[in-house]
């Protein structure tokens, strides 16, 4: 597979995952915000933006509307879907027609005038459409595309992006919550929001019931092996796809990147939440983010930028 094509598949997938995450985070926040005090609401919004790694342009905090519809805000849903489509357009002969049509439909939807009008009245409707659109794309991908190299790139992009976001969410929310009194209704709402930001509320309840504590929430989001929006699950999927990619490309010798992911995976598998929280959990979240960005850099060195000199020496 062409390096450029692999790179586009990977970013198409990362951008779509990001669009869906942003839609969910904003949806949850706007809902929760109605019951928070102004100060708590502002703090929470800052945390959400921190988790999404939004840059403030000249100190201006972008509004939820900007982050949804404005194609000039680089982190907005509209920008992410635009970037995903642009990547898809460059490789449209590599993905199935059904996949391109779905991404194109989503793009036409988010950029349309009626969508903007609808958002002003009923933002959650638009968020719902975005989430559905991305889920549909994932389903179409799984059922219409060969589960070969291209599909693995898509999977790697999706889960790497997801792992990065979960680490970011925990990092930004937990640094406050860790020092606050548990059982306070405000605190409870914040934990609830954190779970819902990862679609984890219902799944959590089935394990722990409606009782929310810092430790249990963190444990669920970090270490659950079975829940698809946990860090453990996401890192595991990333590792599996990187392993498959090294095999299918014959780059096993060069692909040291698995070791980084493998070590993180071992840590998630064999560390208990108490151990993590005895040491500094915040530092751990920082490390996960650094690891993910490191894996991304190594993908470039091994797969995406080929030169003749490297091919000969490799």
């Amino acid at each position, binding site marked *: 597979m*062409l390096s450029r094509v*692999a790179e586009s598949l990977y970013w198409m997938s990362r951008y779509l995952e990001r669009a869906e995450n942003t839609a969910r985070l904003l949806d949850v926040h706007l809902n929760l915000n109605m019951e928070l005090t102004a100060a708590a609401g502002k703090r929470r919004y800052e945390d959400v933006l921190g988790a999404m790694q939004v840059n403030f342009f000249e100190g201006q905090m972008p509004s939820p509307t900007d982050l949804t519809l404005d194609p000039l805000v680089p982190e907005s849903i509209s920008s992410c879907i635009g970037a995903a489509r*642009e990547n898809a357009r460059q490789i449209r*002969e590599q993905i199935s027609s059904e996949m*391109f049509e779905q991404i194109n439909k989503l793009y036409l939807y988010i950029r349309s005038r009626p969508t903007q009008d609808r958002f002003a009245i009923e933002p959650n409707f638009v968020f719902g459409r975005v989430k559905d659109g991305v889920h549909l794309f994932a389903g179409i991908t799984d059922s219409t595309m060969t589960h070969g190299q291209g599909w693995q790139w898509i999977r790697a992009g999706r889960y790497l992006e997801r792992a990065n976001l979960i680490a970011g969410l925990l990092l930004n929310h937990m640094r406050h919550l860790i020092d606050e009194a548990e059982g306070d209704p405000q605190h409870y709402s914040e934990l609830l929001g954190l779970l819902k930001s990862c679609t984890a509320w219902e799944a959590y309840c089935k394990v722990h019931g409606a009782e929310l504590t810092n430790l249990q929430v963190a444990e669920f989001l970090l270490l659950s092996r079975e829940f698809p929006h946990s860090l453990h699950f996401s890192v595991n999927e990333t590792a599996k796809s990187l392993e498959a990619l090294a095999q299918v490309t014959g780059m096993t010798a060069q692909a040291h990147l698995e070791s980084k992911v493998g070590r993180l995976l071992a840590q998630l598998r064999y560390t208990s939440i108490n151990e993590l929280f005895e040491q500094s959990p915040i530092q751990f979240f920082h490390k996960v983010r650094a690891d993910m960005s490191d894996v991304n850099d190594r993908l470039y060195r091994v797969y995406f930028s*080929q*030169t*003749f000199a490297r091919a000969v020496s490799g």
Partner: protein
Amino acid sequence: MAKTSLDSPLFERYQIQQFFDEMFDEGGQVRPPYLALAQRLSLLSPEEFARRQAAADLSFLRQGITFTVYGHDDATEKIFPYDLLPRVLSNSEWQEVERGLKQRITALNLFLGDIYDKGKILNDKQVPRELVYSCKHFRREMRGVKVPRGVYVSVVGSDLVRTDGGRFAVLEDNLRVPSGVSYMLTNRQIMKRVFPRLFRDYNVRPIDHYGQALLSTLRSLAPNDRPDPTVVLITPGVYNSAYFEHAFLARSMGIQLVEGRDLVVHDNLVYTKTTSGLRRVDVIYRRIDDDFLDPLAFRPDSMLGVAGLFNAYRHGNVTLANAIGTGVADDKAIYAYVPQMIKYYLGEEPLLENVETFLGWEPKQCQYILDNLDQLVVKAVGESGGYGMLIGPHSTASQRAEFAEKVKANPRNYIGQPTLKLSCAPCFTEGRVEPRHVDLRPYILNGREMTIVPGGLSRVALQRGSLVVNSSQGGGSKDTWVLHE
């Protein structure tokens, strides 16, 4: 102007013009190939037809079948306007066209092989030497380069027009990188979806095998007959106006779509950069103009090409389709000599006519062009896509004065042709059917053998009275049916 014999609200505004009409004869009777279509249309209300047209448009937009219009800042991605009414050709009409095209492409290919080798036709003074050497698409670098099977042009999209009396004539040969074939194929897909019953009953010759035919043509041109050759399609990239088509063709052939930056040349061999390292390439179907192919050989500022590609090509390690330097044979001045080429190389009379052409290069003919600017269509010889032309009868005095200056300044660069009476075909516009001018672009493939899929792209000038069918100038297209009979 006459009314038609067709009693249908769809056709209530239809007036038969003084041009050849594809669907109706002079008396307003429906021509035989269109009879079943006419019958079906008379059962459709304009509202129902509009609904189906809207469904077709939406289908294009959803699939992202769009092209880029240069020179606009916003809304640059447009769907290529599509008209639902098919153009129908009988098999006998088509076979005549097919024979004529095969004869013409054979001669043009021999001409290219000749002028880049011994230049016999030039020595025998059948085509003026100065005209060939002064053409900006003539590539000195190609002298003495051997191309596989002697095939210079492997993909051609000739522009045919039907004029008075319904005879087809060739307007342009398009031997460089002709586009539009993806619209021919998608038009058909959408037509089958929107009018399935009509289509099934009509016995139309299929065109779906184009991708496979193109691939086997390209594979048959592999250097030194290398077994199992790797074929790639090179595109200028996603911002090119025909990007959709490049992706479409790569997918229909199952080959890689590459950009210049995906290729690297080492020791005169061409490789693609892949996630598994470098992989050798044998045949490149290139959708990039000569000028941009290799910054070392041609334009040094080209970011689209591959450094060293021309040397690999000259060494015979990679095939380019089409070959470099084919543009000289579709120069609009050299076009005038194609009938002589056919006689010279094949000893035959041309089966397809040329359009009468006056050369700015010949002083007498140049004077004729200048004296008749208000009657003629004047074109720059190396341009395509409907750019750089003057349509005399539709021009203003100042436009004519401006063009007269251009022609005087560089007569070699201009030709004049009589304003053609292009044939008309029915098109759905503003809720009813009206006649619009059309041309026909069949696609010819030339490798081990010559293949032409039946039909081609019928392009339509959507503005009433307009003669310009280019997509960049507001043209649209129709599906073209060749019947089995």
